């Protein structure tokens, strides 16, 4: 079935899968956003406990999605893996540290004799929530603003001279940290951060049966929506007006050798060239706002699902804009022709085909996740449950 697809079709299919995983990841960042709200929404120990336990039953979905996103990106676009991870070393290391400390925080938070104390584990959750979301957003921002790297496969043969044998090299000294100095990257990072907080608030409101938390949730929803809109609109404004990295197809030439050039309004052109993606984007933005506004005016009790769906659609369409329509999704500002495209950075046709069969498992995975999610969430969290349940965080 997948064998009959062309290499380009398989590359596009995998860009769609990777984009879908990334957009699901951002939706699941509601756990991270919620973690930064523990002290804002919870004032008593019981309230905090309810919040931590509500999020604690979902944190592994986010974590696993991140790991799977990494694996899928590696399998489908290995040159991105080697170039970005090996080059923007410090950004990825900081992101990973933020997730390492999260993984133990829930389980160890209230266990007796836990060495670091409850407060420390709560701080771990807050660091994860803030650093994780902002840096992931910032890193994704470089898909549009570019990074200073070079790729030269001939380096592998450097056995006689003094040059490095490493193919991908970061040409700036900050190893990825410089991305945080770019207004576009930072806007996206902060937009993701505030979006995660909004999603966190909406999720907690839907999952916890406690009047105080619900009342505070509404207030904080408004407080977070304002900065979210400011940063999101800044990012979109820059995106639609900036020059973009366009791949120039050459008939009869191996796509590995195609050139990349700057094109004015490239990402706006991409939206216009792919109206379906534009519609997804607009639907996504409307759904996020609907989820927020509906909750604020009290008409919507499950705003998390509307805003969550909107998040997935928005992020998904933005990533399609980055990689489709002959666009370099990981541009190099050091040497524009070293930019990564879905054509020059992907796995072989054989591997993409084999992996495509594996991707048929995704609907089954989604089905059992929905089953488990419903089984756990069929009743809202109450203080009585927290007192009687034998396994709590």
């Amino acid at each position, binding site marked *: 079935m997948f064998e009959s697809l062309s290499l380009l079709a398989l590359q596009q299919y995998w860009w769609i899968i990777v984009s879908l995983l990334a957009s699901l990841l951002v939706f699941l960042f509601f756990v991270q956003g919620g973690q930064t709200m523990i002290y804002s929404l919870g004032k008593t120990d019981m309230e905090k406990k309810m919040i931590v336990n509500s999020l604690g039953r979902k944190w592994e979905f986010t974590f696993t999605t991140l*790991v799977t996103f990494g694996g899928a990106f590696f399998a489908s676009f*290995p040159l991105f*893996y080697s170039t970005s991870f090996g080059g923007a070393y410090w950004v990825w290391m900081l992101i990973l540290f933020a997730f390492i*400390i999260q*993984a*133990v925080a829930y389980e160890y938070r209230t266990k007796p004799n836990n060495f670091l104390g409850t407060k420390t584990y709560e701080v771990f959750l807050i660091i994860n929530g803030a650093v994780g979301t902002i840096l992931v957003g910032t890193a994704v921002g470089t898909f549009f603003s570019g990074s200073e790297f070079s790729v030269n496969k001939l380096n592998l*043969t450097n*056995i006689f001279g003094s040059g490095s044998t490493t193919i*991908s090299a970061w040409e700036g000294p900050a190893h990825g940290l410089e991305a945080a100095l770019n207004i576009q990257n930072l806007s996206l990072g902060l937009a993701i951060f505030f979006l995660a907080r909004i999603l966190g608030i909406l999720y907690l409101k839907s999952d916890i049966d406690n009047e105080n938390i619900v009342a505070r949730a509404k207030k904080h929803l408004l407080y977070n929506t304002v900065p979210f809109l400011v940063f999101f609109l800044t990012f979109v404004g820059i995106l639609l007006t900036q020059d973009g990295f366009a791949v120039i197809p050459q008939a009869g030439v191996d796509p590995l050798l195609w050139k990349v050039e700057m094109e004015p309004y490239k990402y706006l052109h991409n939206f216009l060239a792919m109206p379906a993606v534009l519609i997804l984007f607009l639907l996504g933005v409307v759904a996020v706002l609907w989820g927020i506004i509906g909750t604020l005016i009290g008409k919507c009790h499950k705003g998390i699902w509307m805003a969550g769906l909107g998040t997935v659609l928005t992020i998904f369409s933005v990533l399609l804009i980055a990689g489709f329509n002959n666009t370099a999704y990981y541009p190099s500002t050091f040497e524009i022709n070293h930019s990564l495209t879905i054509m020059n950075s992907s796995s072989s046709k054989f591997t993409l085909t084999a992996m495509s069969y594996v991707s048929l498992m995704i609907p089954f995975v989604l089905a059992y996740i929905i089953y488990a999610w419903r089984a756990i969430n069929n009743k809202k969290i109450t203080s009585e449950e927290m007192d009687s349940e034998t396994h709590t965080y």
Partner: protein
Amino acid sequence: MENFDMTLIDWSRGQFALTAMFHWIFVPLTLGLAFIIAIMESIYVKTGEEKWKKITKFWAKLFGINFAIGVATGIILEFEFGTNWSNYSWFVGDIFGAPLAIEGIMAFFLESTFIAIMFFGWNKVSKKAHLTSTWLVAIGANLSALWILVANAWMQDPVGMLFNPDTARNEMVDFWAILFSPTAINKFLHTIFSGYVLASIFVVGISSWFLLKKRDTLFAKKSLLVASVFGIVSSIFLIWTGDESARQIAKVQPMKFAAMEAMWDGKTNAPLVAIGFLEQPAPPHQDKGYKEKEFAFKIEIPNMLSYMAFLDANAFIPGIKDLVNGYTDQESGKVIPSYFDKIKLGREAITTLKNYKEAVNAGDETTAAIYRAKFEDKEWMANTFRYFGFGYYNNENFSGLIPSVPISFYSFHLMVALGGHFLALFIVMLIFSLKNKLHKMKWLLYVGIWTIPLVYIAQQSGWVLAELGRQPWVIQDLMPTLSAVSKIDATSVQITFWLFAATFTTLLIAEIKIMLTQIKKGISGGH
């Protein structure tokens, strides 16, 4: 060589070893304890006896504490292939990335989805749905082991791929050859059974402590019974798969095999060193740059090594010197080139790639076609290109091609000796358990407790043997650590090394303190 930053390479290796070994403290227990818990819960569902539910929950609590830190230490490993070994990620990412992705899609989600039901679902789903979830957690954990070990085995025994000079990387051509390579199957089975043995020792040891303290004795006896039986069955499979693994190593990694027996000179009817101590190094071998170590003391089993490797007591086993200087395989009559010749062949392969790429870049199609033909010539690929990785070496850094003999030797023998001890302990424990005399055998219970640290040492030894014994190869004969590393400054890696060391040590202390507190609370100690 000036183009290799050895400080960077050493710290990158150190960081990977540090993070992998920390992760490996927790994974084996997850692999085995998940099944032990599933068996216990199955007994609960079948008998309906509440005490089995309590027993299940007690061990599940310890499982959860261990699982969290296993997850924390695991995430970094996946990404380190990119952050620290970026050339590796490109050179073989076409093959290596796939099992990592499949691991996420097929195994991690299964594990992490149903673990939520396992912990929070006692009052939310039916008994049977809960039991199914517990089994799915165990299956998910072991499936993830399958895929990561398939990936690891492929690095040691690269099969099912072809080099593509246009992309300058190896590409997958046979998925099933990779999944079902004998190295992969043996590595997977040997590793998961080692996890089952570790988990069984963990349960036996903790149950022994309760029996010594005369607390929760009924619970302890039942747990100990389940664990000893599980431990005996697992140990038998462990020994069997270990034996198969040794045969596989002799075939595909003869240098590792020679190093783990500290065998410098090859011989027919080669004996197996049962116990041995290496003396201080002799002076460096003049022109070869390596240091030969002889035995100060050893007890040997005649013919055993030849039999172990080739199921033939007369078989010739090449020693380290044979592998370095070249030899003629007695059975096939094939001449195995010396390392010096392999270096020359490797350099030829690398130079051919360079010439091809330069011709393509210059648009010189005629020259490019000449070089391209070599990559399509099966004989050239099988006799020259296969030594690609040797080309990064020369007479100066030559000794880097030989793994540390003492580390390989001691880690192998320690692992094997401890494996024997575990099987003996399970059998003795089971016998006295069935006779209901265990609580009177204080010495045995103490042995049970003190075997817990030993089983962790055995686990780490196995890992050290597998990973240090294959040095310098990231991919056997094709890519050494030298050319696999990312281009970053050594200082950055030093900083992250110490950050990991400090973070993981802190978390390990927290984990042990929490675990001990929960154990002391006992089965009836509440939450």
